């Protein structure tokens, strides 16, 4: 806008001409838009003025992603790798990912799952989810995550250890009940306090619920699962806990299942569909546990970049669709982003 200062002796015609010219220069950008980007996978320009300060859908107790992003050591200068994903300086689970499953329901969510009220080693979990967690580590599929490194340049170890489960039937949510992040963290805290869970900073605590229980408030409309972190108190000291909200994906099949026949047939379709979103959260937690390590220029983590793409599938012996085999059992899981070469979505590395 031109500054029109009263009293300055310029002619009206000059002022009007100047003003009109300025208006033209600032006129509707839409008159000649330059972004005919109709493909959702193509992106071009970015707006540094984006404000992430809107209210979130979770009401996290510890919403510290922004602060962490800003505070991560070399965060200001992401390391471009030419693979389509960059490192931003934050921590990763370099030495291996530990897993804990919390089945938070009054009765067993998955077939052959541990009895409600019990806790123990992951090896004792005979459900299909348990089988997956006990065999995904060391697989060619999970090896894709070894293409990522920590701040010292050390590659992530291809290891997932299913160390503990807790079939928690205390105050279990039911129906379509909304469960906030604060409530999930409080439940985890109760597990640490009671000894049903053991705290470990390298463990992803996956919280499974039944039916249409709405973990986080956006289940089935905004997401089918998510990973984040919170703070718990262990021995009087505040600690960061990594957790994933894992609502029952078969409760919203149109949004949260592949729509393809379950890999293991009638064995437990709910578990078959769940492992797809579960592995998404495991690989994202492994490479971007605090949201300030590995992600691309659009803020997509490795799992996001390949979500709901299957690669080459095959028909399993049970008549379902699978794309990986873990020690004899077939599963259908999304591809994962390889941080090597020129990058891309793959099923093995």
């Amino acid at each position, binding site marked *: 806008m031109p500054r029109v200062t009263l009293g300055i002796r310029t002619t009206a015609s000059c002022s009007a001409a100047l003003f009109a010219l300025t208006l033209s220069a600032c006129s509707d950008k839409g008159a000649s838009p330059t972004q005919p980007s109709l493909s959702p996978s193509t992106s071009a320009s970015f707006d540094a003025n984006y404000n992430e300060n809107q209210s979130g859908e979770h009401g996290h107790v510890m919403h510290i992603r922004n602060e962490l992003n800003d505070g991560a050591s070399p965060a200001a200068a992401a390391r471009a790798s030419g693979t389509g994903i960059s490192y931003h300086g934050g921590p990763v689970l370099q030495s291996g990912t530990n897993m804990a499953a919390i089945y938070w329901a009054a009765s067993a969510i998955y077939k052959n799952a541990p009895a409600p009220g019990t806790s123990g080693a992951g090896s004792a979990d005979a459900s299909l989810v348990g089988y997956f967690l006990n065999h995904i580590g060391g697989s060619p599929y999970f090896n894709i995550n070894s293409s990522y490194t920590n701040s010292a340049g050390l590659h992530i170890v291809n290891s997932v250890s299913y160390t503990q489960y807790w079939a928690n039937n205390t105050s279990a949510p039911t129906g379509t009940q909304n469960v906030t992040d604060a409530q999930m963290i409080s439940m985890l805290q109760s597990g640490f306090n009671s000894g049903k869970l053991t705290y470990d900073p390298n463990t992803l605590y996956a919280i499974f619920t039944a039916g249409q229980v709405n973990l986080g408030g956006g289940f089935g409309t905004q997401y089918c699962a*998510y990973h984040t972190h919170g703070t718990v108190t262990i021995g009087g000291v505040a600690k960061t806990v990594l957790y994933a909200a894992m609502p029952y994906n078969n409760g919203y099949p149109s949004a949260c299942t*592949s729509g393809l026949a379950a890999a293991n047939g009638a064995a437990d379709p709910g578990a078959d569909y769940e492992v797809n979103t579960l592995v998404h959260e495991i690989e*994202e937690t492994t490479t971007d546990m605090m949201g300030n390590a590995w992600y691309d220029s659009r803020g997509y983590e490795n799992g*996001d970049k390949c*979500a709901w793409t299957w690669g080459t599938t095959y028909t399993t012996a049970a008549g379902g669709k699978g794309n990986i085999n873990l020690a004899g059992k077939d599963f259908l899981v999304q591809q994962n982003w390889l941080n090597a070469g020129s990058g891309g979505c793959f099923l093995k590395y």
Partner: protein
Amino acid sequence: MSARRRHIEPIGVALVLAFWSHHAAAQSRAAACGPVRPADGAAIEYVREGGNIRPFTVALYADGTMRTGDTSVTQSAAAAAAHVDSTRVAALVHLARTSGFWRLPANPIHKPPRNPDAARYRISVRTTCGAHASAYPLSAAPKVFRELLARVATLSGVQP
């Protein structure tokens, strides 16, 4: 009348005229920009993408043709077809041109948002005088985006 006032009044008139002229020109441009012909593609595309939820695509054409696709299953966006009121498609395109949607950045997000696994919604609008697209997760979408998204969702019957 003071000398100062003699100068100010013509300036004021000129400013009003300039504003009016600019406004009229903008209105004219907006009115002239209709949805692209169906042969040239969808006038409006509404996509759920990213995050950890199954994606979908809704494409609305100038003649009212609507195509929906589930990219997770079909890997393409042509799974189903339906029809909507073509005048409402044109009205939505006009709204997109005039409501401020055109000024939204194409890709405003650079780092994982508060919930990295929440879907983003992308709206792409193609007119005879240009195209524009923008994408946000619902929790971070500005009002102008949310309002357009709600109208597109209502017209298509596909809710976010």
